[in-house]
């Protein structure tokens, strides 16, 4: 539950019915957050990484096959299993409900990677490098991470911070859709999504578009899944990690033979 003492509690909704698996979010994230280019070598070493990935699953048997897509990013769990296992407090929960990673503090034990059920924490096995001219396109607001540390999705905290500064300079006191128009503090993936499958917002804001989904899922936790009014669910809900990302089920207009609706 969002705690009243926090000014913000960031959350995201991923509508799987709208997701087409186009990977625009992946590329936007890669560009925004200075993630090294995943070369062929990295793929062959199985060390290619993305802060948000599109998981692709096939359903059914040929020729009745359907592709299912699911964007998976750091879930910013309220009850994050990665946090208590870090010996140096390199990962902790900040007062805005974000699960943050302090790169300078990280020693690279990789326990958090093991303890993340969503496999969204990534380890830098090599020192990151870019082709010479591409170094000019690095985002100056985001640290370039060195080798030997763990990194992950930040909900583009740099955009939130920039928005907050802007609100402050305009004399406002709260970052929301009224003070910053058009969701200009949204993470890169949300901004890039052509079908608006991803929605980002502040759960402490009573007018946030994502709030009804969270209220619904929180009102019917666990086995109350069938009483929910929305299509919302959380990934691996049985682990009680309480993610800040809610997925909306796909509505299957033409179900595969032998399968129910959605």
């Amino acid at each position, binding site marked *: 539950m969002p705690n009243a003492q926090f000014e913000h509690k960031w959350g995201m909704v991923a509508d799987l019915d709208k997701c087409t698996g186009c990977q625009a979010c992946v590329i936007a994230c890669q560009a925004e957050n200075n993630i090294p280019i995943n070369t062929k070598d990295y793929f062959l070493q199985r060390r290619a990484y993305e802060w948000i990935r599109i998981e692709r699953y096939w359903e059914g048997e040929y020729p009745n096959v359907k592709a299912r897509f699911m964007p998976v990013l750091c879930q910013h769990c309220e009850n994050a*299993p990665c946090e208590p296992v870090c010996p140096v*407090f390199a990962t902790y929960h900040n007062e805005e409900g974000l699960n943050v990673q302090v790169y300078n503090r990280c020693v690279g034990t990789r326990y958090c990677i093991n303890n993340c059920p969503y496999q969204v924490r990534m380890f830098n096995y090599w020192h990151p490098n870019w082709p010479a001219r591409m170094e000019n396109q690095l985002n100056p607001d985001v640290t370039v991470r060195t080798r030997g540390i763990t990194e992950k999705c930040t909900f583009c905290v740099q955009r939130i911070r920039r928005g907050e500064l802007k609100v402050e300079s305009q004399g406002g006191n709260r970052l929301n859709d009224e003070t910053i128009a058009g969701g200009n503090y949204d993470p890169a993936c949300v901004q890039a999504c052509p079908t608006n499958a991803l929605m980002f917002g502040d759960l402490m804001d009573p007018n946030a578009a994502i709030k009804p989904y969270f209220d619904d899922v929180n009102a019917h936790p666990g086995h109350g899944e069938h009483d929910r009014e929305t299509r919302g669910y959380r990934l691996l809900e049985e*682990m009680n990690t309480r993610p800040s990302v809610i997925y909306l089920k796909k509505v299957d207009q033409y179900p595969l033979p032998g399968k129910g609706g959605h």
Partner: protein
Amino acid sequence: MQEGKVLPAAQINRDLLRSILETPRWFWPVVSLLGLIVLAASITVGIMINTGLGITGLNYKVVWGFFITNFVFWIGISHAGVMLSAILRLAKAEWRRPATRAAEVLTIFSLMTAMIMPIIHTGRPWRILYWAFPYDFARGIWPNIRTPLVWDPSAILTYLTSSTLFVIIALVPDFAVLRDRTTGWPKLVYTLLAMGWEGNPRQWKLQIIAGVLLSALILPVFVSVHSIVSWDFGMAVAIKSWHSTVFAPYFVVGAVHSGVSAVVFAMILLRWAYGWQDYIRHEHIDALGRLLIVVATGWFYFLVMEIIFGIYGLEGDELAVRALQFLPGDYGVAYNVWMIIFVGITYFLPVILWLPKAWRRNLWIMSAACISVNVGMWLERYLLFVPGQANKQFQTFTWNDYLPQWPEALIVGATFAFVSMLMLLFSRVFPLVPLYDIKEGDILRTEMQVGRRTLTATFRED
């Protein structure tokens, strides 16, 4: 019943100090060879620290591989020392006497080796001070005491300190013997180490009290060290096959299993190398073999229970890990073949070899059984840790396998050379069979008449 004859004290001193007072011809070549292997591995570690963990086979899914396996293996070996000296001392098992010091020293060296592994396994080992020691008092940043990775160094350093004290206390009377038999600067060193030991009744009393006290104090540490190491895995909620409550006793028994086997093998080697046939006798190896049957069976029970507990819940993601472990898989490495090999060489083969008395007294067969146990126990840790990471949760999209690369294999191999080298160097400087303990055993030994047979036995008043 005890075998062997009571030897005069002078001969005991002569025999057991031969390794220190004379250098065997094979000694330096062997030590140099081991040193070269360690040097090669050190260079590899240097390269790894310089270029990053990219040169290992670890990937984005399997992030704990050979190094952590090896860490747990050496922590396991270190459990032999306390098992043999503290528990058997409190239980007054006479046959422990020649084995105790070798076991304790093996404890210290294997703990030291084990502690290297998680450090070089981290991404930025030069920052490890942040982790093991509170470092930033001014800003109040302390290590996160909720994580097993902070419990680990605490438990291991406690164990290392107490075992070192234990060895030193047992060594003091032997230092005095050496002090009286050496000249020049070695004499000076031994004089300092002997701390004014004269062998008067008061000193003996204090030494015995200290030994017994430390034995009793070290026992909780003995149980807790490997329990805590097992919690590195047991506390990981996200990995299905790791998140098991049976891990602590399972790991402790497994540690005793591999540790005692390692001590038996080390004793056979030392007996052969230094000609200690009168001290490390067949009866000792025989007794350790019998102990090992019990330990191995206890370990096997926990192994089966761990698997049954895992399957009993019928959770899809746990079953996926078990399927990877036990069924022919899609990956290149068939874990089920390794599983069969591992259970065979860790339990069935050695226990069959230990059952007949004649085989327990055959040093070749005992060596083979003990090596087989240790190879198997190393495999056990690997097969326990890697499949769980490969198929962590039921998001099949991320499933991945792990193939170790040469740097990991070289470093892991070199840890064996490192421990052997340290043991050999130790045996050149300090007696590896406790002189006073052997003499004490001989003094306490008496002959008794049972029916028409004369038996040797030990009587003590306490």
